[in-house]
């Protein structure tokens, strides 16, 4: 019964539909890149450099003769990888810290939340730059840097909503039934904050894709010959006026991916809203 009405409402929700379609395209592109790209993504073919879009090269080639479509597909793979791992790091550690803070209360809660504030006080991208500068440029360090900044985001969301759940009667009833704080955190708090965490995860996913593109653009993320949308933008910069399409296509890919994830998050927020569910 609940599943039917979720599907029915999902079809009516425009942001959810558009967002889900765009995200599905991103996932399909990634999956496709694993088995097939028109040309090997990093293959340099200088005689065929800067070709206009044609039947052989659908979106043309760049200054080293690399096929744009192949690079975009391979770049999607990096974006997804960065998003999944960075959001995964944030979810695992952030949710654990947030649950611990909400359940522990008192000094432990204060310490955890002030540590989060401390992390927030740093401009995230600057610290990511510092992180990769110290540990070395590369996609793994970029992912770690982005992931670390996701931790306080999820910790804050989990704690705020977790405190909300713990103040509900059913949390009190669970305590009256003899449940310990850890059991209550996992059986009552986590399932009830999960919808908000899913929404937050889609938004953090989009931010992670943007951050990876920015870091790669600065030469701190993906290293050649690895394809990445940020690196494509950085390469395109010198030929901005000669061949603007070199910047347009990867730029469009980033925009569509981020837009899709944000719309999906918006749509999910509406669909998972407990007030709407209560009206069911």
């Amino acid at each position, binding site marked *: 019964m609940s599943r039917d009405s979720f599907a029915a409402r999902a079809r009516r929700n425009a942001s959810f539909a558009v967002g889900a379609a765009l995200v599905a395209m991103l996932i399909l592109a990634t999956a496709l890149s694993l088995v097939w790209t028109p040309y090997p993504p990093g293959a340099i073919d200088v005689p065929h450099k800067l070709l206009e879009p044609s039947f052989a090269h659908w979106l043309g080639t760049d200054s080293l003769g690399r096929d744009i479509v192949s690079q975009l597909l391979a770049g999607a793979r990096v974006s997804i990888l960065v998003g999944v791992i960075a959001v995964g790091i944030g979810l695992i550690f952030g949710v654990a810290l947030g649950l611990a803070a909400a359940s522990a*209360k*008192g000094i432990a809660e204060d310490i955890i939340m002030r540590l989060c504030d401390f992390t927030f006080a740093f401009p995230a991208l600057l610290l990511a730059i510092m992180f990769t500068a110290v540990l070395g440029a590369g996609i793994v360090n970029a992912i770690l840097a982005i992931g670390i900044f996701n931790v306080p985001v999820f910790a804050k969301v989990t704690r705020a909503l977790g405190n909300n759940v713990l103040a509900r009667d*059913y949390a009190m009833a669970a*305590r*009256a039934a*003899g*449940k310990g704080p850890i059991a209550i955190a996992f059986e009552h708090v986590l399932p*009830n904050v999960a919808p908000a965490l899913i929404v937050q995860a889609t938004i953090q996913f989009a931010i992670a894709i943007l951050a990876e593109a920015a870091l790669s653009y600065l030469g701190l993320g993906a290293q050649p010959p690895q394809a990445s949308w940020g690196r494509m933008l950085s390469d395109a910069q010198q030929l901005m006026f000669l061949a603007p399409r070199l910047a347009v296509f990867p730029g469009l890919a980033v925009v569509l991916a981020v837009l899709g994830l944000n719309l999906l998050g918006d749509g999910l927020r509406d669909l998972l809203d407990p007030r709407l569910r209560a009206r069911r």
Partner: protein
Amino acid sequence: MLLEVANLNIDLPTADGARRIVREASFTLDRGQTLGIVGESGSGKTMTALALMGLLPDGATTSGAIVFEGRDLTRLSEARMQELRGDRIAMIFQEPMTALNPLHSIGRQIAEPLILHRGLSKAAARTQAVKLLERVGLADPARRARAYPHELSGGQRQRAMIAMALSCEPRLVIADEPTTALDVTVQAQILDLIADLGEQSNMALILVSHDLAVIAQNCARVLVMYSGMTMESGRTQDVLARPAHPYTKALLEARPRVSAPRGERLHAIAGAAPSADAMPKGCPFAGRCPLTIEACRLAPPAPVTLRGDHTARCIRIDAAERLA
């Protein structure tokens, strides 16, 4: 004696220091007995109930003793309290709408204390949960066990809450306004159910309510609380038939009565209860009470024993008797 509460004080922390919200509460309860705690909002009745469960808000402190089955609960560790809660002492909450987790099925929520305290397997606990649902009078219990809280009516949910509270056959059940959120016809059924089940398994019951009629029908003894103080206590029939304290009298007069002449307005008690941060050092009812004299405002009244275990905290008992 199953439960003995002696000189229980409860202090809640506030920005301007601790605030005493329950003062010198003392009462006893034997196996299978029923006790009603009646009082208006803020009288400390719910806090007294939560203190018995060891579920006071963070930072609250208590003094005095709560001896349950020979152990002082105020000195037990949280881990020991967790073993008692839901097993030896259980609680039924006011709002069946919000006291059940919307994401878990009814059967799962009833099975949980059984798994926790009785070590039952999941399957055995589920079977037991269905039996419990049948015992609390839900039709088609197997189907109800699979239902989620939003699929049940308020009365059905309260029955499920009762099944959950009684799952481990506790010795003491505390019901905090268990019927306030329900409509009147369902109220009576739920109260009868709690009373019947309590009698069958010889459970003691503490019923917290603002409704004197509910207490009168279901409790052998009653405690009248006002501003954190036990104003009067004794057998329900004594307290209601021959109230000694001016507050109890005023409460009884404020009830709507069928025999009252048409058009007569309900009696109200003039004034308002003192707020907890401006608690007078004397009797908290002084000023609202028609018998107030200067001495009432000087020191808190000590309990005066009338007949048997009927006591009242009032220094003007004699005058109050004459007033009756």
